[in-house]
């Protein structure tokens, strides 16, 4: 897509004024990094607070035609393996849209707000997800919130920075969702994120986004952070990137996401199955899988990146799978990666070998996350 056909988020002017290096991402012009660069931005989030524009992501309000919140939750359970009925008002949960083979069409966050469910979906999957919801959930109204922006404020100083404008956020815990006035804008704020740090995601009217972002940036702890650091932060936090670590060919169990499938949806549960690919996924939960997503710590300093083949041996005789994400971890101060390996090799501390430019690079399977999560539980 050429530069002049790329979509702009409501913060586009702020990005360019702030020296953002704009790159095409899922049809949008988005900042890869600002003047400080990815390493410094990454560290700033771990040490202070970073503000990310994630307005390219899709925001959808789902309501049952009956108007009943539980009916909407039951309807969404036809498309995802998580328990939506038990999701309490003002809480958020992570899940996936699955296909008939148990593969992942997208991963998403779902919040229960009164009689509605609020969904945050990946930018690149937005159109397909919305069509999927409309096709499959005829008993629901699918409202695409086109006029809303999404900001993420992440890091140990995020709470203080946001509380300066909206004191009520101090009382929120991880995965809580609250409607709050921030500088005159009615925001829907969740205490969650994609960095492994404490922080918030702030949904707000597009017309207020630039003003609220600038207010947050007035505080010395807060700096703008680009997509480059967002990727290295989420990788250190062990979180999946849709399209790299998970896709239509990987199931939630292969991807080590079974923690997001509650008991009520598993065999013997109150509402077992009933989502696409449930036969495959529920069988895998009990019988296991032939490959698993794992963390990998490559030896030495060379980053091992997505696509690198993995083997059991330095002769490359026994293939195990491949790396799906890899980079240099600025906080770990070493290369970090994740990928899929044959299940026999998935236990932490197992030695494997990555192929990098024809050479064998030893790597050790590492329990995720690489950097301990600091959520406010």
């Amino acid at each position, binding site marked *: 897509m050429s530069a002049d056909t790329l979509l702009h988020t409501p913060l586009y002017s702020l990005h360019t004024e702030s020296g953002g290096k704009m790159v095409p991402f899922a049809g949008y012009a988005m900042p890869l990094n600002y003047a400080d660069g990815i390493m*410094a931005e990454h560290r700033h989030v771990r040490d202070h607070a970073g503000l990310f524009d994630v307005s390219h992501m899709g925001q959808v309000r789902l309501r049952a035609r009956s108007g009943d919140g539980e009916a909407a939750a039951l309807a969404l359970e036809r498309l995802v393996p998580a328990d939506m009925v038990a999701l309490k008002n003002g809480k958020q949960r992570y899940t996936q849209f699955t296909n008939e083979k148990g593969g992942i069409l997208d991963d998403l966050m779902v919040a229960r707000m009164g009689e509605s469910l609020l969904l945050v979906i990946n930018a690149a999957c937005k159109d397909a997800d919305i069509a999927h919801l409309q096709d499959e959930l005829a008993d629901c109204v699918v409202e695409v919130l086109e006029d809303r922006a999404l900001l993420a404020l992440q890091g140990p100083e995020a709470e203080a920075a946001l509380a300066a404008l909206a004191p009520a956020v101090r009382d929120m815990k991880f995965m809580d969702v609250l409607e709050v006035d921030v500088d005159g804008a009615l925001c829907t704020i969740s205490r969650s994120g994609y960095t492994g740090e404490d922080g918030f995601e702030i949904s707000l009217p597009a017309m207020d986004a630039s003003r609220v972002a600038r207010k947050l940036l007035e505080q010395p702890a807060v700096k703008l952070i680009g997509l480059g650091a967002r990727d290295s932060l989420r990788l250190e936090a062990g979180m999946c990137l849709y399209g790299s670590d998970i896709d239509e060919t990987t199931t939630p169990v292969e991807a080590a996401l079974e923690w997001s499938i509650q008991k009520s949806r598993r065999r013997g549960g109150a509402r077992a199955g009933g989502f696409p690919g449930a036969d495959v996924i529920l069988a895998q939960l009990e019988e296991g899988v032939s490959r698993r997503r794992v963390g990998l710590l490559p030896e030495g300093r060379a980053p091992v990146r997505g696509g690198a083949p993995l083997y059991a041996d330095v002769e490359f005789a026994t293939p195990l799978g491949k790396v799906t994400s890899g980079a240099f971890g*600025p906080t770990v101060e070493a290369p970090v990666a994740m990928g899929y390996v044959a299940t026999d090799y998935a236990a932490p501390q197992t030695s494997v070998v990555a192929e990098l430019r024809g050479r064998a690079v030893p790597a050790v399977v590492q329990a995720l996350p690489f950097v301990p999560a600091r959520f406010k539980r």
Partner: protein
Amino acid sequence: MTLYFTKDHEWIRVEGETATVGITKHAAEELGELVFVEARDAGTVVKAGDSIAVVESVKAASDIYAPVDGEVLDNNPQLSDDPARVSSDPEGEGWIVKFRLSNPDQLSALMDADATPP
């Protein structure tokens, strides 16, 4: 000593038969802080256009290409411990590879320092 530049934003400093290669300030700024640099071993014979080194930022790996034919003589030993030297001083301490020219006539196809602002 003559300084040349390639369209890939590399510089080549030629002293007699020896050429030192690095990346320009512009290229270093584009790449961002480097986390890893790996050059071909001494003794490797390369043709113009062959990869002679890989430089990696957090985000991506980029090849450094031999601007002309030659044989790798040496690579910058400082960079294995401190790859960020390429970012901080790309046209000095951050040099990447030295090699012996095997076909000096090829230099005429490159841009010299006077012709191209770095």
